[in-house]
């Protein structure tokens, strides 16, 4: 049932990119609108509220700063993975992928501690609009982190066999997954100050 779909890993002569890259950027465009709607909700709710607490009075800034660094580092390891693969170093590339997965899991562990501490104090999303926004936005972001972990772990694990069949296709897949991962980092870059620092 396999027919050949052109430009799966070769660049299209007009756009200059393969199918997968175009698809991933389009997906990220839709994600910009998704998180945009949440930021818009945050803006509208906060702007119209008679009072709104500063994030640093209610949330753990040092912990979140650590998490921010963890995520940025994972972005670096992700792009390093791609660079290694483009240079033909499969083993190094794979290692960087696993480093990314590890760091991403670390991010989730920290989030777990943050959330459980709040729940311990009886603070749930229903407590106030501030917490509703905090839990929902970081929660949806966290789900995206989980999705990223699954995708990257797949590429580092069972999906790595594609390298031996078609190294360009594999490197492209890593690059496209990397685009997604950098986007997840990007959202956090805005989320962190918006929720914790102002």
């Amino acid at each position, binding site marked *: *049932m396999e027919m050949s779909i052109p*430009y799966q890993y070769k660049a299209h*002569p007009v756009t200059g990119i393969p199918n997968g890259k175009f698809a991933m950027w*389009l997906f990220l465009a839709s994600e910009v609108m998704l998180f945009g709607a949440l930021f*818009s909700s945050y803006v509208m709710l906060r702007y119209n509220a008679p009072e709104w607490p500063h994030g640093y009075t209610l949330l753990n800034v040092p912990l979140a700063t650590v998490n921010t660094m963890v995520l940025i580092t994972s972005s670096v390891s992700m792009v390093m993975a791609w660079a290694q693969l483009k240079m033909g170093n499969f083993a190094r590339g794979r290692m960087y992928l696993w480093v990314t997965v590890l760091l991403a899991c670390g991010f989730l562990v920290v989030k777990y501690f943050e959330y459980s501490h709040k729940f311990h104090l009886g603070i749930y999303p229903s407590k106030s609009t501030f917490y509703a926004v905090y839990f929902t936005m970081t929660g949806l972001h966290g789900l995206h982190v989980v999705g990223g972990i699954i995708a990257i772990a797949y590429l580092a694990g069972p999906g790595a066999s594609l390298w031996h069949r078609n190294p360009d296709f594999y490197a492209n897949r890593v690059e496209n997954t990397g685009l997604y991962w950098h986007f997840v980092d990007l959202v956090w870059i805005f989320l962190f100050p918006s929720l914790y620092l102002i």
Partner: protein
Amino acid sequence: MSGDHHSHGHSHASHAQHAPGFWRSYVFSVDHKVIGVQYAVTALVFLFIGYSLIMIMRWQLAYPGKEIPLLGELLSKQLYSGFQNLASGGVLLPEGYNALGAMHGTIMVFLGIVPLAVGGFGNYVMPLQIGAPDMAFPRLNMLSYWVFLPGGLIMLASFFLPGGAAQSGWTSYAPLAVINFGQTAWLVGMIFLITSSLLGSINFIVTIAHLRARGLSMYRLPFFVWAQLVTAFLLLLAFPPLEAAGILQLMDRVAGTSFFMPSGLVISGKAAEWTGGGSPLLWQHLFWFLAHPEVYVLILPAMGIVAEVIANNTRKPLWGYRSMVYAAVFLGFMSFIVWAHHMFMTGMSTKMSTFFQATTMIISIPSVIILTALVISLWGGSIRFNTPMLFATAFLPMFAIGGLTGLPLGLTTSDIHLHDTYYVIGHFHYVVAPGTIFAMFAGIYYWFPKVTGRKMSETLGKIHFWPTFICMNLIFFPMLIQGMGGLSRRTYDPQVYEAGQALAATLHKVITHSAYLMAAFQVPFIINFFRSIWAGEKVSQNPWHATTLEWAAPSPPPHGNFVGEPVVYRDPYVYSPVGRSDDYLPQFVGPEV
């Protein structure tokens, strides 16, 4: 040159593999044609269900408080304790009326028209019209259908869940929707449907950009493909805010947050359990941010189909092709910045309402351009009034009425009187019912020969068309009159109000019986459809003598679509070319012929 070194893989596969089994061929197929048919058939079933819901509602409107014939007893049955009855003692309940209304709208828009227009026609026809072997991501395509179907089933299942179906309109406004029963399944269903749409729209855009045949530049694309391209961008960028809003409303319902719940809310005399601080208007903004582009998702594929059928049956090129393309692109862009014209009555400042009024007036221009170009395309043509052409031609005045009746709604001053009246219902139904649905019928009759290798019966087609056309007007024109008289929409029994009696007593009966009559005249279509699959007149590859690329493929096209590589040599609508004996010159016929 396709630039792909794996083309030899095709012949390898056909030798090396045994024929895929039933499940891979017809159920979990990655072939865009199978997926297109799956979408279309599923959507037609949902359209039938959605129409049935409104037929039940229409009985209550025409004969308030009277027992519903045939179905009254069934709808009053208590299936289990806690089951949310639609009716009691054979008479429709107000809650049942609201549930049917909310689900009718939701089903028709999200489970009926979009899957048919985009998932069905788009999936099947677009790759053929661009000369592609399939979509850019066949497995993603399959996934998008199998995410759509559970979403639809969850929506239907909501009737049987504790709390019943959604009762707060297809618009699901907070805080009513948050405190009402039955919205949770609606919200979950919407999340499935939106995800399916997103996957599909990515596929469409990449396919149109990358998989066009040799010689098929963007300005040689059939207008149908342009329409699908703009539609895909609308789905891609406008749906996510509703997905976000759906998540927020789910949080309000399930986690007790107050994204949309205002402070100081009192429900039936008791203070609400939510902490408050939320904004009901926030929901409206997020909802309409999608829902306005959504209506262009409903109309653009329809315009695309009408353009194809008109060009083919006038034996003339489309007039103003480039204008139509630019208009469609401009329309898509503008559709993102008009949404608050659905919210003129929410107390916004004149500054903002003026802004949205202005953008709304501006967006009517590209619609008019497209409609005018289509009308001018008829001028001087050798028109063949076959069934697809009847529906396509009828689309024009029907969409015109729909569009024109939108203008008083887009102007703030007149909207004060017309908002939330039957005028609105008349307006938008003119656009989607004798508008889009007529285009869908045109498309079915037109492309049936490509899908099955057989034509549908012309006689049954005309028996389907004429009564449907007349009934559509009998149903929706009175609504315009009722609305101008001030009759409110979403009212279980308008006749309890004195003004309602004058406007509703007779006209609602006219509308209801016309709706039932129209239902009866869909039977010839259903008979025609199924009979023709097996016993229809067998036809050649290009029975309509059309010029676009899908007619270069066999009917039905095999896996991989084309025998040999399709190449395009000219514009899409070269009809009645000078100095030739044939009255058409297809895109795919070489210059030496």
